[in-house]
């Protein structure tokens, strides 16, 4: 009989080989990061350095936050093998609803936000019911939802815009973390947060390495480990420094960061996430392995509804008005972000981080093209081509590995 540890020593060499394999498998995501860096550098040059100016970096975050929030919810939907076309309309509807609650009914913003998120989840539950339990294809249910909630938006707004929102509500999108240290010209709290985050990154990586050693798994050589951690720390601190030289960390970035961390954790480390992947990979097999497939599908759409609501709130707060046209084409941007970020249309494949990177690729391109004065007509066309090429690259990669 082999003991487990003996067994592992025997296999260590194989795990070493697997590093190459893992890299190959994840080339899609590394590829996306490389593409993001490339696009950023390209526009940094084309815009004579405006792109990465502190003001513009802050703008980039503010401009894309509501799409990124949608992309987080959407990537879950896409992993389960579905699609949601209604999120733009839901965002508009929730924006309108929140305006009515806050501007016309004078409800306190905090309460209004809670209610709005709850209504979003209810809308998600409504759609999830038809998709999971009645088994109507998500494309159809959410296409209906897209029309339905756009219509409802116009009805409750009476075709008019409602503005302005209370100040405290606007802060969601336009506010920044206060500087408790009272820095002059530089936002010290931001720098401090950057340092804290760096320490967390170091701690987490170190802990992971220790677990690997404990279980006798293959670990990367020490210098690679240090190089990896060092570059992560560098990226974090350069980023927070850039933000600190403007107004510091926008509130919305905190929300986004928390969402990304939570959803990545759920998808990678928790049973719920594993069930979502299994369901998307093979619904029948997942069901026969005890995954409650209907329930999982239902909750993924409830979640999407709540995320769409959050996105609608962020957008309304940023615009400081609820308009009948809000959220138009949001669904397409969110879906594109997921696919650019490596999600598969047939389900089972995709990551939260990938969707975020995909969203940033689109965001940087939008921003960069606007800065160099390219018209919306050209922007649309170029974005379309990028989406097509990203997915083509993905499929080419897959056929090569098979």
């Amino acid at each position: 009989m082999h003991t487990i540890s003996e067994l592992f020593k025997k296999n260590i060499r194989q795990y070493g080989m697997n590093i190459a394999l893992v890299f190959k498998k994840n080339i899609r995501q590394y590829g996306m990061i490389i593409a993001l860096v490339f696009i950023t550098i390209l526009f940094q040059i084309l815009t004579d350095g405006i792109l990465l100016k502190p003001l513009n970096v802050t703008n980039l975050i503010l401009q894309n936050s509501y799409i990124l929030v949608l992309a987080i919810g959407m990537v879950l939907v896409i992993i389960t093998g579905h699609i949601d076309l209604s999120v733009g309309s839901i965002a508009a509807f929730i924006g309108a609803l929140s305006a009515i609650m806050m501007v016309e009914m004078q409800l306190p913003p905090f309460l209004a936000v809670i209610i709005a998120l709850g209504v979003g989840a209810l809308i998600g539950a409504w759609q999830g019911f038809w998709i999971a339990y009645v088994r109507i294809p998500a494309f159809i249910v959410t296409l209906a939802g897209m029309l339905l909630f756009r219509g409802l938006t116009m009805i409750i707004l009476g075709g008019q815009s409602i503005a302005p929102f209370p100040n405290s509500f606007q802060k969601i999108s336009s506010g920044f973390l206060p500087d408790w240290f009272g820095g002059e010209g530089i936002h010290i709290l931001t720098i401090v947060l950057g340092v804290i985050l760096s320490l967390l990154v170091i701690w987490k990586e170190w802990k992971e390495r220790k677990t690997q050693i404990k279980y006798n798994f293959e670990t990367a050589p020490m210098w690679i480990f240090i190089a990896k951690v060092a570059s992560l720390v560098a990226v974090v601190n350069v980023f927070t420094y850039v933000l600190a030289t403007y107004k510091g960390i926008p509130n919305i970035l905190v929300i986004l960061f928390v969402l990304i961390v939570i959803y990545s954790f759920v998808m990678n480390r928790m049973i719920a996430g594993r069930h979502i992947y299994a369901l998307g990979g093979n619904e029948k097999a997942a069901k026969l392995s005890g995954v409650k497939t209907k329930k999982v599908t239902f909750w993924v759409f409830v979640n999407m509804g709540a995320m769409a609501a959050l996105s609608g709130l962020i957008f309304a707060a940023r615009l400081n008005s609820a308009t009948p046209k809000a959220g138009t084409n949001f669904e397409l941007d969110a879906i594109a972000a997921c696919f650019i970020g490596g999600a598969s249309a047939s389900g089972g494949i995709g990551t939260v981080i990938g969707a975020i990177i995909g969203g940033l690729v689109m965001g940087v391109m939008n921003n960069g093209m606007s800065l160099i004065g390219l018209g919306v007509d050209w922007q649309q066309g170029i974005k379309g081509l990028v989406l097509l090429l990203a997915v083509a690259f993905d499929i080419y990669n897959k056929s090569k590995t098979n």
Partner: protein
Amino acid sequence: MVRTVSDFILEMRGITKTFPGVKALENVNLQVKEGEIHALCGENGAGKSTLMKVLSGVYPHGSYEGDILFKGEVCEFKDIKQSESLGIVIIHQELALIPYLSIAENIFLGNEQTKRGIINWNETTVKTRELLATVGLKESPNTHVISIGVGKQQLVEIAKALSKQVKLLILDEPTAALNEDDSENLLNLILELKKQGISSIIISHKLNEIEKIADSITILRDGKTIQTLDMQEDQVTEDVIIKGMVGRDLTHRYPERVPNIGEKIFEVQNWQVDHPEQEGRKMLDNINIHIQRGEIVGVAGLMGAGRTELAMSIFGKSYGKNIQGKLLLHGREIQLNDISTAIQHGIAYVTEDRKDYGLVLIDDIKRNISLANLGKLSRRGVINESEEVLVAEEYRQKLKIKTPSILQKTVNLSGGNQQKVVLSKWIYAQPEILILDEPTRGIDVGAKYEIYSIVNQLADEGKGILFISSELPELLGMCDRIYVMSEGRITGEVNREDATQEVLMKSMTRGRG
């Protein structure tokens, strides 16, 4: 063009095909005589399918070494179209018919009968009728393929091949999904086609079929030709074939086991199940069965007897409507209203169809093994991934899953190894009752033996096993007791000592009367 005189319709000489890191075929030779039925045998992964893909042009000329001579002429196929134009037609294991098109449309798909670009439906129908008559299929050419059974679909595939003026017909596991009657029909048809001068290559794991119809046989092992034998002259028996395939004598096809049978642990009483869609159609009627600790209980029956339906309706009501009757675990009645409840009560079901129902093919081995018992690996919903790796490694060793790594995607494994992953998943779920539905279907002889050993070991550990199989020798070799099903009812119960193929077959064919 080089011409050599020979009585071979096909000669493949020195075929070598490498994939990155693997030599799939090494200097393989295959010679098929004009007008014969040539069997191609070998374990899964021996290179049979690769060889046929080389032949048909799926792997184009230039991607392999060696020569292909068809009717004495050297061929360099760039794609399937070219090989088909010479009359080499493959019928794959997974049928390539389009369910919502008619039989006629399927037969002439890609080969439409047209006049100036417009489809001539009259001619299509007339020709289809002729072809269907040839293969002995009594269906209207306008019937949708989805509404006929697998056996008839197989005949449609052959009719389609005939429409292409086939000279050499290649059948990959043609009877794997067929019941005895349909298999018999199909084999007779192949013999009939031989009389009309059509040569065939048949790939099959069912050695008795090969013995029955093949004129000669080529055995592959590990990508190499082991031997080519004339069935008559060399007096080939099943044992000879098995020896060639696995490279050793398999004196015992079923591992030895001394049954140690304990008390009754699971009982199904007066079980009744209706068809899920057709109102009031009874699929299972008054089923009473029980399983004892450490016992392997077989379930025999023809296709459509209701064996899979029985298993699935027990397993968390995953089949059927209006389910009535009682389930008793250790004498206490239990309600299994969904699958996760069934798993919690210690019931596991290894499905008949690994790829569609057993595995998440795009996921790796590790994630597939843990899927049914993630609760054990996690605390407050958070999975301990290091522990997960250990578990997967343990099962890889225990069940001898042949793979470079547990991070390998299951889609890349051979049938036998895929089945071991499914078994690992369910053993890790720690069931008391294990329902195995055709656990060795489409698996080669060597891997079958390993699966049998695993099943025996599970029984020795005190689990109760319900073993559903269409292969009677397998049931006779493995089971302590066998239930026979026919038309949704139990029509027989036979102990190991009294069981013979004849006894079982008699109960299997007993109708409602």
